[in-house]
């Protein structure tokens, strides 16, 4: 991940999108990321997401996104479906860890989520921590994460971040 700006079309979801909606347990008998991606968001309010979304589309959700299970299959399915960033009012804590640890960019901004509509186009500046809604031109600030976590995210995840230490 570099400092560039991500631009994409929004699929909007509500509060408490849990990991069973993101990737139902019936698909957890595999850890193949591309197979998981084929079923991403299948039990959510947009069950057609996996089939109809385009690479680069952005997920925007309400509070407590990714609640429930610790399954890393959830952020994996999202990442390998080509979703470059998830914006939410808040993230459930294990999903938050998993996203950071595997290098899936996540952005928290309750104000922006309130204003973003399904189908909007938004621009996310990860480095600058801002979200711009192209329809209105409004710009919102994202919650700042601690530097240590941003470093892990920038490195592409925990294993990359710790590569020197792990592979000595």
């Amino acid at each position, binding site marked *: 991940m570099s400092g560039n700006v991500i631009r994409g079309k929004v699929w909007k979801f509500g509060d408490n999108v849990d990991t069973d*909606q993101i990737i139902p*347990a019936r698909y957890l*008998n595999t850890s193949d990321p591309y197979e998981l991606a084929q079923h991403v968001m299948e039990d959510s309010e947009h069950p057609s997401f996996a089939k109809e979304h385009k690479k680069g589309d952005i997920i925007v959700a309400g509070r407590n996104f990714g*609640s429930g299970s*610790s399954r890393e*299959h959830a952020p994996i399915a999202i990442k390998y479906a080509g979703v470059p960033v998830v914006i939410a009012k808040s993230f459930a804590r294990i999903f938050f860890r998993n996203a950071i640890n595997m290098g899936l960019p996540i952005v928290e901004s309750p104000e922006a989520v309130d204003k973003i509509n399904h189908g909007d186009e938004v621009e996310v500046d990860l480095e600058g921590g801002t979200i711009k809604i192209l329809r209105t031109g409004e710009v919102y600030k994202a919650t700042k994460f601690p530097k240590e976590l941003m470093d892990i995210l920038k490195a592409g995840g*925990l*294993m990359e971040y710790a590569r020197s230490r792990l592979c000595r």
Partner: protein
Amino acid sequence: MGMTITEKIIAKHSGKKEVHPGDLVNAKVDLAMANDVTAPLAIKLLEKYGIDKVFDPERIALVLSHFVPAKDIKSAEQAKIVRDFAKKYGIKHFFEEGEGIEHTLLPERGLVVPGDLVVGADSHTCTYGGLGAFSTGVGSTDIAYAMATGEIWLRVPESMKFIFYGSLKPWVSGKDLILYTIGQIGVDGALYRAMEFEGETISSLSIEQRLTIANMAIEAGAKNGIIAPDEKTIEYVKVRTDREFTIYKSDEDAEYVEIYEWDASQIDPLVAKPYLPSNVVSVYELSDVTIDQAFIGSCTNGRLEDLRIAAKILKGKKVHPYVRCIVIPASKDVYIKAMREGLIDIFLEAGCVVSTSTCGPCLGGHMGVLAEGERCISTSNRNFPGRMGHPKSEAYLANPAVVAASAVLGRIAHPEEVVSLEEVTV
């Protein structure tokens, strides 16, 4: 300023005198755990990065619990990855299929003691807080890293305190206290935080019920749930392990972001309706809700005490003709004890299905998956859309007595509708 029990355990494991909420620390783990769903991802990561050693083969637990005995070829392949890894690295605490669900097994086998810091690639790892340990659910990358280094990054959580006083009504248990709590604060009411439970009601509970309370802390979004150890904890642990342990308790002047105090004597048996564990109402409000399936088991309520309570209700009764009742002891040890006590006979004679230990139906995995439009009342922990099967199926969460009573009447029922208190000693 004083520290909470959670802060003390994290400070100790990160080599610091004190820590404060919001601090990011690197902590040493006493145990790292993963299961047949989460371990394969971690093992693949270790392979990808060419890591060919683990930090300590005696402090890693690998448990085959979710899709075992293998429900299909893919699940068999996943289990095989874990099995082969355990063999190759001499993982001491490797548990084959049928040994049990990790969160029942680890406390039962004395692998967690008070004051420990445990991470597990399963969200219900917070269960061990019932023993006064800090334990939290993490992902597969975290576990790969912990298996390699013995360390984990942690943000020190703010603590919330929940005080319960008063005696419980008949048929009310630890499950109802945690459902009550989640109902009050919501599914993200404790997001990123520690939930500390105390008070005379909590002290009166058995260790098994305390484990049930800590188990569902994650359903309020918490990082961990914790109950300070007491004589009961020490007694429970001492017969299971020789390992030495430290008892931590919160300081009088420790800081809490919120403190709740509730009268437990006013709490009825509760049920969480679909599709959130916070959607909690009294069992009396749901007596017209019919069910297709009743499930007694899971890491939340599949322990011996839970089966004993269910058996009290089901003894000499029959499961309603339109209902399937599935009973799954949460570990082999629970299964054996239940068998010797005659509980399994009671379940089978009542018309229940009894299966070898697995997480199975709790996550819609196998051994009792729901069809479209079907409704299940379950002693497990989640009632999200599609959690137990078809996206349009429904799960209601309750304690084992309520689930057993509902199985008999074919609708959600209070236990007193099936047995009178004179018939059984609760």
